[in-house]
C-alpha cells in the first residue's frame, strides 16, 4: 500500500443506501473523510448512525452506493470482488466486538488463518502467528481454544489475528464493547501501542467516551454526517 500525500484513507462524497423491500434507507450521505497515515481515529455516534457501515466501506467489506473510497492510493470501490478480497488480506486487519474467533481452532490456528492466503510455509506461518501472539501477550495460551479463554484474552487473539499479516490499517468495531473496564483498558493500551510503536493506522468505532479518549482524533457520526463535535 502506498501512501502518497500522507493521507491513508480518502473518502469522497460517499452515499450508502440500503434497500429493505421497496424502502430505501440512506445511511450515509455525501460523506467526506480523510484519515492521515498513522492516525488513531475514533468514530462515535448513536446506534444506527452509520459507524459500522463507514468502517465496512473503509475496509472494503461493502461498497458505496455512490462516491469513492481510496485507501493507500487504491480506489477500492473499483476493484473486483476477488481483487478486493486479496487487497483486504494484504492491507487490512479487522477486530470485532465479539471477537469472531473460530471456536474449533486453537488461538495459534486462529491467528494463522489470514496467513493461509499467503505462500508462506507451514513453519513460517507458525512462527509469525507465535510472534503476533507474543505481541499481544498471549504466547503462553497459544494452544488454548477460544472457549477456554477470557473475553479479554479472546480479544487479544482477535488483535493478533488482525496484525499477523502486518497490515497498515486496523479497523476495530467496538473492540471493548463486550469487555469489563479492566480488560477493555488492556485492549486499548494494546491498540495505542500498536499505533505509536508500530505506526498502525487505526479506525475504531466505539460508544465509549473513555475508549475514544485514547484516540488521537474523534469524529462523531449522526444521521449519516460527520462532525468533530457531538450533536445533541
Amino acid at each position: 500500500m502506498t501512501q502518497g500525500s500522507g493521507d491513508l484513507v480518502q473518502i469522497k462524497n460517499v452515499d450508502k443506501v440500503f434497500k429493505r423491500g421497496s424502502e430505501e434507507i440512506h445511511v450515509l450521505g455525501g460523506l467526506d473523510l480523510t484519515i492521515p497515515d498513522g492516525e488513531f481515529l475514533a468514530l462515535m455516534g448513536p446506534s444506527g448512525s452509520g459507524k459500522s457501515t463507514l468502517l465496512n466501506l473503509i475496509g472494503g467489506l461493502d461498497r458505496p452506493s455512490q462516491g469513492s473510497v481510496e485507501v493507500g492510493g487504491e480506489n477500492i470501490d473499483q476493484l473486483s470482488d476477488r481483487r478486493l478480497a486479496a487487497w483486504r488480506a494484504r492491507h487490512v486487519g479487522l477486530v470485532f466486538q465479539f471477537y469472531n474467533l473460530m471456536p474449533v481452532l486453537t488461538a495459534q490456528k486462529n491467528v494463522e488463518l489470514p496467513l493461509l492466503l499467503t505462500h508462506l510455509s507451514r513453519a513460517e506461518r507458525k512462527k509469525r502467528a507465535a510472534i503476533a501472539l507474543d505481541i499481544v501477550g498471549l504466547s503462553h495460551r497459544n494452544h488454548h481454544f477460544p472457549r477456554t479463554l477470557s473475553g479479554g484474552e479472546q480479544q487479544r487473539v482477535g488483535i493478533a489475528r488482525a496484525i499477523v499479516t502486518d497490515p497498515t490499517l486496523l479497523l476495530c468495531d467496538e473492540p471493548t464493547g463486550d469487555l469489563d473496564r479492566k480488560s477493555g483498558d488492556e485492549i486499548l493500551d494494546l491498540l495505542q501501542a500498536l499505533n505509536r510503536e508500530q505506526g498502525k493506522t487505526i479506525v475504531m468505532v466505539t460508544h465509549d467516551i473513555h475508549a475514544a479518549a485514547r484516540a488521537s482524533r474523534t469524529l462523531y457520526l449522526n444521521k449519516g454526517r460527520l462532525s468533530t463535535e457531538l450533536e445533541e
Partner: protein
Amino acid sequence: MKYLYLVWSNLKRAKMRTSLTLLSIIVAFMLFGYLGAIKQAFNQGIDVAGLDRLIVRHKVSLIQLLPASYESQMEQIEGVDDAVHQTWFGGVYQKPSNFFAQLPVEPEEYLEMFPELLLTDEEKEAWFNTRTGAIAGRKTADRFGWKVGDRIPINATIWPRKGGERTWEFDLVGIYDGAEKGTDTTQFLFRFDYFDEARQNGQGLVGWYTVRIKDPERAAEVAAAIDSRFANSSSETKAEPEGAFLQGFANQVGDIGFIMMSIIAAVFFTILLVAGNTMAYAVRERTNELAVLKAIGFTDRGVMGLVLGESLVLAGLGGAVGLLLAWLLVSLGDPSNGSLPVFYIPARDFIIGTVLIAAVALVAGILPAMQAQRLRIADALRR
C-alpha cells in the same frame, strides 16, 4: 492441503452429527460394495463368457435332454469349430445345503473348450486315465477340505446307478484354478463315459452343448444354422451366445441387476438427504464465521471450496471406509457359505464407487456451498 486442517476442524465441530452422517455414508457404501459382489455372483461368468462360444440347449427348456449324437452333427455345420456336452448331475454331498454344480463331461474336449480351467499336466493325465476320476474347482475343494487322492461320495437325486444305488464315488485326481477372477471354481467335473455306462437310464442323452465357433462376428448366423439343422426333429434346439445364456439363467430369479440398482438408488437418495442436511446445517450455524473468513481475505470461491471440501472429506471418508468394509466382508466369504460360484467386488464397482463418492459430495455440498459463496460480509456480520 493447508486448508485440510480447517476443513477437518469444522467437521469435528458437531462430533455426534458428523459421526452419524459418516456412519450412514459408510453403511451405504458398504451395502453398495456387498450388493455389487452378490450381483456379480448372480451374473457369474457373463463377464468372462467366451465371445466365441454358443450354448445349445433343448428348445423347450434346459431340463429337457438332447441326444449325444448331436455333437458330431454340430461339428459338421459350417462355422462350428468344436462342440462339447455337459449334463446336470444334481447330486448331494453329505447334505443338501452343500450345493455345488456336478457335471459329467468328456475330459479332453472339455478342457480344450474351457482353457480358463487350469490344471497341471499330471492332474490332466490322471483324469484322462482314471475312469472314476474327477476334478474339483479350488473354491469347492477348499470349502470341503478336499485334497487330491480323496474319494468323494455323492448321492444322486436325478441319476441313480444301475440297480438303484444312489451313491456315486469319485476319485479326486485334480483341483483346478481359474485363469480369471470371474472363473467359476466351484464345479465338480467327472467323466461322462463312466457316468453314461453306470447310470440307470438316459443313456446317450446329454444336458446341453457348448459350441466354439470360428468367427465370433458370425455367432447369430451359426446359432441359426444349428437350430435349423435340428428343426422338426424330436429334440429341437435353441442356440445362443454363452453370455446371453448365462444372463438368462441369472434372470430366472429376477432381474438381479435391477433389484440391486433399486435398493442402491433408494439408499443413496436417503444418504443424499442426510448428507445434504448435515452440510446445510453446518453452513447455516456458522454464517458469521464464514463472513469473517471473507472479511479477512478469503474469496467467495475460496469459501465455497471450503464447504465443498468438507462435503468431499465427509463423503470420501465414509465412502472409502464403506467400500473397505465391504471388501473385508466379501473376503470373508459369500453369505451362502461357499455355494456362489464367484463372490468378489469387481474392479468396475470400485470405480463406480469412487464416482459415487464424488457425486454424493457434490450434490450434498453444492447448495450450502453456493449459499456460502453468495454470503455478503456486511449483512452476515450484522446477524
